[in-house]
């Protein structure tokens, strides 16, 4: 790698003539989904990159104004499709902030476990596919093996392996069973060995290290001003994690560390993701051991919460309760106010800005996707790197097109 070129790339506009324009995407194996870049190349060096997005803009936010708080969860699922349940948790966290609902301990714990499983889900795929793009197919297979186990855990709890639509306002669709607990315990027990294999295969792989180290450097100041959050910001030295700084769900009860690095390059971002996986396993282990008994819907949610299915079929009160939480003219009324509430999704700060207008649906449901801010930084990251580094940088900031375009 010609480091002297990287250190002082001459990016003057007057040297720009004779640049070569290369169209990258929207259908390219390394864009995973649908991203398009227009690169300005000087030989193999990228002088400028202009991302062009919107190839997956499907009107999520418009649908959020049409569907009610419980229905829209099926749509937010499809936003960050490599960690679906993290979106559901973020959405209902925001709705519950607007409605002022406090969750039961059991519900909080189950949601926390799922949020951390989704973090593993996301980081495994992010690392696996990036290594695949950089030329190694084996790590991808290892990562997907573990993902299949997480899919099974999701399926056992919700009935769907991918888009679970598992959370409800003030609770969950179903309670979990004892064999689900056993499955999670089994997963926690087996994961460290897989992690060792995976880590040895990837993080000590000389090809991988040399292709990611000192590539796509993001400074701390740029990360802050550009709105970077999550692993991307933490790899640049911004040690901020909403799980610790603005504790939501049950994160206050657990002992875990916030992983950060000073490197700011692609390798640091992958390293942060690898370390976070261990912290996630630590949280899941503590949560599953302490999983409290009790109801999953808070008693004081009133009309917002859904009654237990057994109640619905066996008692008239339960049926009325169910009816009142489903029918649009009988539902709970949200205050005519607006809130912004965010959770630490695997990719960064996933926030929702909800405006309530006195009905059980959002007047405006704005998503604050981490990918949008991260991809806007892309042209800063890639300037002065080689063409082959585009793939590494794209993989390291983990852009999810559906979340980016909504």
């Amino acid at each position, binding site marked *: 790698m010609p480091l002297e070129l990287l250190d002082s790339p001459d990016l003057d506009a007057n040297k720009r003539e004779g640049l070569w324009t290369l169209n990258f995407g929207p259908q390219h194996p390394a864009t995973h989904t649908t991203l398009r870049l227009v690169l300005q190349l000087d030989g193999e060096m990228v002088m400028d990159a202009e991302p062009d997005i919107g190839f997956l803009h499907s*009107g999520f936010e418009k649908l959020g104004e049409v569907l009610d708080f419980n229905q829209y969860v099926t749509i937010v699922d499809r936003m960050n499709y490599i960690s679906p349940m993290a979106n559901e948790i973020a959405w209902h966290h925001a709705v519950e*902030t607007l409605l002022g609902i406090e969750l039961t301990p059991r519900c909080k714990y189950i949601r926390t476990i799922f949020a951390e499983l989704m973090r593993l889900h996301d980081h495994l795929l992010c690392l696996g596919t990036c290594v695949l793009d950089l030329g190694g197919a084996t790590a991808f297979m290892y990562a997907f093996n573990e993902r299949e186990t997480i899919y099974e855990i999701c399926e056992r709890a919700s009935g769907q392996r991918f888009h679970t639509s598992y959370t409800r306002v003030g609770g969950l669709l179903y309670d979990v069973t004892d064999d689900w607990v056993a499955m999670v315990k089994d997963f926690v027990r087996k994961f460290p060995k897989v992690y060792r294999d995976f880590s040895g295969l990837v993080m000590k792989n000389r090809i991988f290290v040399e292709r990611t180290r000192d590539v796509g450097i993001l400074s701390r100041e740029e990360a802050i001003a550009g709105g970077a959050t999550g692993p991307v910001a933490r790899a640049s030295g*911004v040690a901020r994690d909403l799980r610790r700084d603005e504790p939501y769900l049950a994160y206050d009860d657990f002992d875990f560390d916030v992983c950060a690095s000073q490197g700011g390059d692609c390798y640091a971002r992958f390293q942060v993701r690898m370390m976070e996986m261990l912290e996630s396993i630590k949280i899941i282990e503590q949560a599953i051991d302490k999983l409290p008994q009790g109801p999953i819907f808070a008693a004081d949610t009133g009309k917002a919460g859904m009654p237990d299915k057994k109640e619905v079929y066996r008692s008239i009160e339960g049926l009325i309760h169910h009816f009142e939480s489903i029918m649009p003219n009988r539902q709970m009324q949200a205050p005519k106010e607006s*809130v912004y509430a965010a959770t630490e999704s695997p990719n960064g700060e996933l926030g929702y*800005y909800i405006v309530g207008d006195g009905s059980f649906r959002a*007047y*405006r449901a704005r998503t*604050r996707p981490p990918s*949008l801010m991260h991809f*806007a930084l892309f042209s800063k990251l890639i300037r002065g790197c080689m063409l082959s580094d585009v793939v590494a940088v794209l993989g390291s900031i983990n852009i999810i097109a559906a979340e980016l375009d909504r």
Partner: protein
Amino acid sequence: MANQSTDPKSSEIETVKLRLSELLSGISLDWSEFRNQTRVICPAAELLKCLKAFKAVGFDQLTDLTAVDLLEYGNVNDRFEVVYCLLNVDSGLRLIAKTYLNEPDLTIPSATSVWFGADWPEREVYDMYGIIFAGHPNFKRLLLPDEFQSFPLRKDYPVKGRGERHNFPVITRAES
């Protein structure tokens, strides 16, 4: 969010309010609070000055920038609300700044000179609502194709669109 009610946070907000009233003397800011979130309404004419003052008091990250169409909201006189979610990365303090806009003149100053992260969110707001940010370095549609003529998140635009999604040539199997 729930823990923002603790004492250090509210005293920090008070200091911020005090410093802002010094920096922005003569501009009336309308403060309010809901679920421990501090909101402030700035006049659109002095927006850039307000945003610069917010940055000066420590809000160094623009978490989000969005807009709301208030056409069907009821009991409001304004058409559009532009929302800036700000964050002080070191102290974790959050602030939601809002401003109101009305139909004939939908132009407000761009915040890209204050936080460069405002670049894409501003283009997205233009794409969805048609609000123009003056002084933006690369101002064009972000998500929708350039040929698209409407602003889809406005309340008077139907969910299913006006037939744009059907406006393509058909390829039959025999001719492909």
